[in-house]
């Protein structure tokens, strides 16, 4: 398929076919991103808004929203890790143990992902709210425990919301894994546990890394989960951005925060590419 000219048309036809997408990318992606860069070094207008200028003051002032960065950078890794721990055994089960029900069980993982994120998140207000789990635990004899509007509630919301996204990449690597390697390990006298930790997990690392990065990157821009389950007490960077753009209307400062979010994300992707690259080198080495 690689080089054949499908549309058979001239350069002109191809140019015209690419035009709408090109316009969209320029007007709705490149220009807007350029706009936040410009805003982030500008000054705040008297009524909110923005006045052109060149100052790095907003970047110097990032510490004022340190709590939001701190919450994001602690709860996002924690939630990602929680997702991984819960998703891995399920992915393992789906890839290695089932055969007959596989496509049905996989669809069951996809369905929540197609269901509104907002609805799935607010559903937890029922479970974690006063009449849910806390009163059930009280009934069992425990002390009343506040669950809603805590970092714990946000972590649960994160794990719940992003679980399907973690299951898939891990499932795919485990599915492709050569099952004979597991048999070989067994034949060479390794027990089930040794095989799992020394063969299965290392071979599924690409899936683990991809899933974790996907979830982590999406979490850095998260707004809904802290807004709904954190009750305005536990802020993420996303919540700070909504506040700065829609409520307190300090656009230049908000733009500086958005830029730092993008930089953090690019660093994460860089680390990811490096990890994956190193992994491929290792595989290439062991293949020699």
């Amino acid at each position, binding site marked *: 398929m690689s080089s054949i000219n499908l549309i058979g048309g001239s350069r002109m036809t191809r140019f015209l076919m690419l035009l709408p997408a090109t316009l*969209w990318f320029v007007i709705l992606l490149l220009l807007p*991103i350029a706009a936040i860069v410009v805003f982030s070094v500008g000054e705040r207008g008297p009524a909110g808004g923005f006045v052109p200028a060149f100052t790095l003051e907003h970047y110097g002032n990032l510490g004022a929203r340190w709590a939001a960065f701190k919450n994001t950078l602690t709860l996002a890794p924690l939630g990602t890790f929680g997702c991984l721990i819960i998703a891995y055994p399920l992915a393992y089960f789906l890839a290695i143990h089932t055969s007959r029900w596989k496509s049905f069980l996989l669809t069951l993982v996809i369905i929540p992902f197609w269901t509104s994120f907002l609805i799935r998140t607010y559903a937890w207000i029922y479970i974690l709210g006063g009449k849910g789990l806390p009163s059930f635990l009280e009934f069992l004899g425990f002390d009343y425990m506040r669950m809603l509007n805590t970092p714990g509630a946000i972590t649960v919301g994160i794990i719940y919301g992003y679980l399907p996204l973690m299951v898939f990449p891990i499932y795919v690597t485990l599915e492709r894994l050569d099952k004979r390697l597991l048999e070989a390990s067994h034949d060479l006298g390794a027990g089930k546990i040794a095989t799992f930790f020394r063969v299965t997990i290392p071979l599924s690392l690409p899936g683990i890394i991809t899933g974790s990065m996907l979830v982590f990157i999406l979490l850095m821009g998260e707004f809904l989960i802290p807004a709904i389950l954190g009750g305005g007490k536990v802020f993420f960077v996303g919540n700070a951005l909504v506040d700065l753009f829609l409520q307190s209307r300090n656009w230049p400062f908000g733009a500086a925060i958005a830029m730092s*979010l993008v930089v953090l994300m690019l660093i994460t992707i860089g680390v990811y590419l490096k990890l994956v690259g190193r992994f491929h080198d290792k595989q290439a080495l062991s293949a020699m």
Partner: protein
Amino acid sequence: MLRAYSTLVYLFLYTPILIVVVFSFTLSKHATSFECCGISWFGKVLENPFMMEALFNSLRIAFVSAIIATVFGTLAVLALNSMRGPMRMVYDALTYAAIIVPGIVIGIATLSALVSAFDIINPWIASVWPTSDAPKLKMGYFSVVAAHSLFTMALVIIIVRTRLESMDQRLVEASYDLYATPRQTFFRVILPYIFPGVISGFLLAFTFSFDDFIIAFFVAGSETTLPIYIFSSIRRGITPEVNAISTIIIAFSLILLFVARALEKKGLAKSGQQ
């Protein structure tokens, strides 16, 4: 043991959704108490003009933005297919960037850019407009459609491209060998082959737009979409009415998902025959 564990994970995945569905059939006035059972709250949803307006807005935005995304995206895939080198890399990078940049940043960026553009364009329109009631561009329906269609166009590009790349090149060669013109080859061989990809791209784009909260929250101006409506009402407390509309949305997304899967299977079966 693994089986028991997996059952627990499935319970974890479905309990919250089931709670919302079950509580939408309550007769009680309060969302937290359950009195069995009736569909009166679904009737209330239909009678709530604000909710219906938000639903209608969301459907309209999802439909129009998905159409734009599908047409622009598919055209781009076809044009890019034979392209290699730095130009191709630029488009690939833009496609991935549109997907990777978090929704919240897309929302903020679009808001900043459009507001700045309107600040320049509006006085200009006013100056050339013959009367004093010149139209003013502002954030609303069109800005949401635009922001959604950018992101979903990138999704469509990836899905349709995957489908096109799985096509056997010999089909096209055979078509030419049998004296089909490029035009006939396109409409009778290539388009039917990629069609399932185009449809699943459209459905994914529609679902994304329909479910999106964060981008619309920034660029919708005074317009309300259904997720924005639901978000602002649950801030005041969950109501059975919100559960009822949520149940409708869940049912609707399930139907869309199964349609997409069925089309995918049909597409696979068809290409298997060829």
